[in-house]
């Protein structure tokens, strides 16, 4: 390491004069500039490392997740004129037999075990999907009709080229006969890969080919709604009080320390609070978005208070003085002038706070929002999941198809976050005033 403190020195020291253009000094300069450049390179390496990781993260998730946005479907053709079914009781008709008969028409003779393998290539609830379509529109029953039925998870993997058919048969989840049958169907043009609307329209399911995010998305919606309804008014009111009204004393100091501290309390501790107080002492229902939203509101509150205080102080005092000067009360000056002027910044901060709350997982796990729930919640008191907890559930599921679905769910979550932050940035750039 080059050192500079020996150069020069005090004039009284008996030392030979420094020859600045000597070889030795040139070497020294070179070493010093080298050290400078090295530091610069380390910095660039550090940034490249962090950004490279970000790229790998997004890349991997996109690469594993994009496949879940399509789903292999098989088109089957059913002739209802031949089928025997009781049209007065469509709910309990033998849809299983009708479905099996229809798909068997597509292939040649099969042995008993081959038949079983063949049926397992379609989602096990295929008969119910057909039933529901027909109950919605009974006119289908006049003559022939085609239906799109999802293929089961292993076959979906096969269709997407994720099954290595060169492996010995007992090392993969699709056997040779199924591959052959699949190729048969494919040659007939019955296999398609349309956009996977089920991912957004269905709720959770044990079968990857049927599992969707609608329950999680509506759960997250209710959570954020409750969180917003509590934290927004309370946060703004607290900020106005602390900034404009509170006397400077020990107690308000205590409140401020508290708020700063709450912002740094681990989220899992808020989960414990929710579990012990909201569920344990108040007896509110488990897994309900109401409880989750309340916990998230307590976590978001410090963010909103801090943002609001900053926004209030940034409004020039001339505006307040002008309002007071023409006879407005203190409340009127604040609520008619200062607060509206600082609203864009407050909204920006609130949206960013809500985006953080949307990704929060740990507290929701503790209050039971990781339950297996197959229908979207209709209100804030019904058991539900949320986007992050749904990701947690799917990440823990052993089926192969859930890996892609987890990544897809993460992409959906990230999409919502990008959207919210985009709105926040838009608000900031469009409406925020610089005084």
């Amino acid at each position, binding site marked *: 390491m080059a050192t500079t403190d020996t150069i020069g020195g005090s004039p009284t020291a008996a030392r030979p004069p420094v020859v600045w253009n000597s070889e030795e000094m040139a070497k020294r300069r070179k070493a010093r500039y080298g050290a400078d450049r090295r530091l610069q390179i380390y910095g660039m390496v550090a*940034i490249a490392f962090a950004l490279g990781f970000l790229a790998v993260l997004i890349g991997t998730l996109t690469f594993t997740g994009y496949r879940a946005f399509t789903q292999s479907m098989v088109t089957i053709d059913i002739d209802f004129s031949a089928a025997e079914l009781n049209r007065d009781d469509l709910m309990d008709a033998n849809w299983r037999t009708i479905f099996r008969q229809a798909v068997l028409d597509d292939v040649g003779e099969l042995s008993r075990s081959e038949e079983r393998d063949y049926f397992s290539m379609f989602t096990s609830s295929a008969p119910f999907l057909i039933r529901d379509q027909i109950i919605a529109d009974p006119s289908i029953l006049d003559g022939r009709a085609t239906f799109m039925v999802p293929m089961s998870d292993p076959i979906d993997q096969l269709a997407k080229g994720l099954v290595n058919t060169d492996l010995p048969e007992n090392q993969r989840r699709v056997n040779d006969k199924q591959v052959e049958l699949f190729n048969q169907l494919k040659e007939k043009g019955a296999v398609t890969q349309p956009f996977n609307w089920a991912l957004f329209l269905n709720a959770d399911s044990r079968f990857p080919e049927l599992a969707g995010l609608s329950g999680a998305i509506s759960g997250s919606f209710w959570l954020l709604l409750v969180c917003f309804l509590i934290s927004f008014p309370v946060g703004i009111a607290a900020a106005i009080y602390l900034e404009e009204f509170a006397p400077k004393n020990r107690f308000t100091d205590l409140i401020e320390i508290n708020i700063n501290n709450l912002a740094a309390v681990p989220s899992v501790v808020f989960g414990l609070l929710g579990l012990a107080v909201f569920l344990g002492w108040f007896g509110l229902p488990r897994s309900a978005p109401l409880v989750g939203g309340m916990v998230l509101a307590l976590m978001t509150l410090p963010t909103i208070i801090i943002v609001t205080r900053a926004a209030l102080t940034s409004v020039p005092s001339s505006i307040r003085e002008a309002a007071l000067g023409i006879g407005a009360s203190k409340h009127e000056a604040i609520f008619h002038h200062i607060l509206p002027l600082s609203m864009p910044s407050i909204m920006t901060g609130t949206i960013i706070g809500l985006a953080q709350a949307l990704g929060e997982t740990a507290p929701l796990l503790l209050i039971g929002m990781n339950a297996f729930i197959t229908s979207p919640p209709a209100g804030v008191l019904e058991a539900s999941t949320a986007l992050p907890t749904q990701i947690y559930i799917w990440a823990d599921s052993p089926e192969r198809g859930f890996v892609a679905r987890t990544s897809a769910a993460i992409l959906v979550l990230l999409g919502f976050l990008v959207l919210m932050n985009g709105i926040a940035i838009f608000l900031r750039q469009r409406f925020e005033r610089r005084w």
Partner: protein
Amino acid sequence: MAGYLFGFMALAAFVAAFLGAARGRSKRFAATEKTHSRPIYHGLNAAIWTGVPAFVFLLLWLLFQNSVIDMLVIGSYPGADSLSGSEKNLLISEIRQVAAGSVFREPTPEITAAVAHLKSLQALSSWAMLAVVAALVAVGAFLGIRAIQTRYPARHSVERSVTWFMMFSSLVAILTTAGIVLSLVYEALQFFARVPATEFLFGLRWEPQIAIRADQVAGQGAFGMIPVLFGTFAVSALAMAVAIPTGILSAIYLTEYANERFRAVVKPLLEILAGIPTIVYGFFAVLTVAPLVRSLGLSIGIDSAPNSALAAGGVMGIMLIPFISSLSDDAFAAVPRAIREGSFALGATKGETIRKVLLPAALPGIVGGVLLALSRAVGETMIVVMAAGLIAKMTLNPFESVTTVTVQIVTLLIGDSEFDNPKTLAAFALGLVLFIITLGLNLIALRTVRKYREKY
């Protein structure tokens, strides 16, 4: 039902506001003498009278009705006085389940009677709630509208109510902290009544898999938190080993070397790392990083666990980079220009200035940032829940799996949670420890940062 009541109250308040404002605006007022408040304040005042008492009442009622009903039902259950707290909880949940219609076995006559009692109480409660809310709304609207007189200071009254609401709101932060401390301490004390505090604080074995029923085969159960704490700090140390150098070096580059355009692009990109939800990092750690780390460990001949501490800690470190980077950035920016220029004037290169002048001057700020990041690492949950192990081990080998405080809290509480066995309560004791550690780290960090700010 409660939802409709809230809707009804909002509507009533709105109507009252309208009526009040109309009355305030009426000629009878304006013609005679000067009114004290503008019509809108009369309206708002009427709305507050109408809505707020009923709203507060309804909230309190909803919060407490379940506990009160449970208490009444249990109180009238024959022989309930001899039951312990947990047996009472079991009993009440059974009664509630039968009342909800899910019957697994034929209920005993006592249960059937209790269910009838519960149902009658619930019906009574909802009628009483309806009646009281309706009465409060009616009386409030009547008083609020009658109060409108020419000289009535409606604005003062409204402003006083608003001030009260603001004061209450600023208390929410205190109430939250109090709630956290009280609930953690209360449940932790329950835990220490079952497991001695000395065993928890100094025990070297953590095996919470105890038998819940007498006939189950399970371990004895040991609740020594030292190995869990050890694992927490091992993972945090790995995270800091990644985050500190990367964060500080990138802050140095961004503040000192990079030009304005590079900075404007790269800084927001780095901030994205902090905005990604931790569950995403957790999934990525399991999906990609953990297998990589494992094969790396195996290739250099170290026995590696599939959920190694290194994978969890490394990914956590990446998450913390922007945190340390932006706090160091602030610390560098706060160093006065004169100091920097003095160093340049003496002929120091940029690198020398950074290492020997800026870094020491900014050190307190950087240390504060590092402590805040450490507190985050200790409290971080989802990455370790997904990527770290469950078995508490004291090992310094980063390729082995360790467990952390947050992992244990989540695994102990996920699924069923009856508040009566040491397994569940242990989670609250761990939560208390976690709260104290992060609180301490935050206070020290804030103090360091503040002290440093006073200097310049």
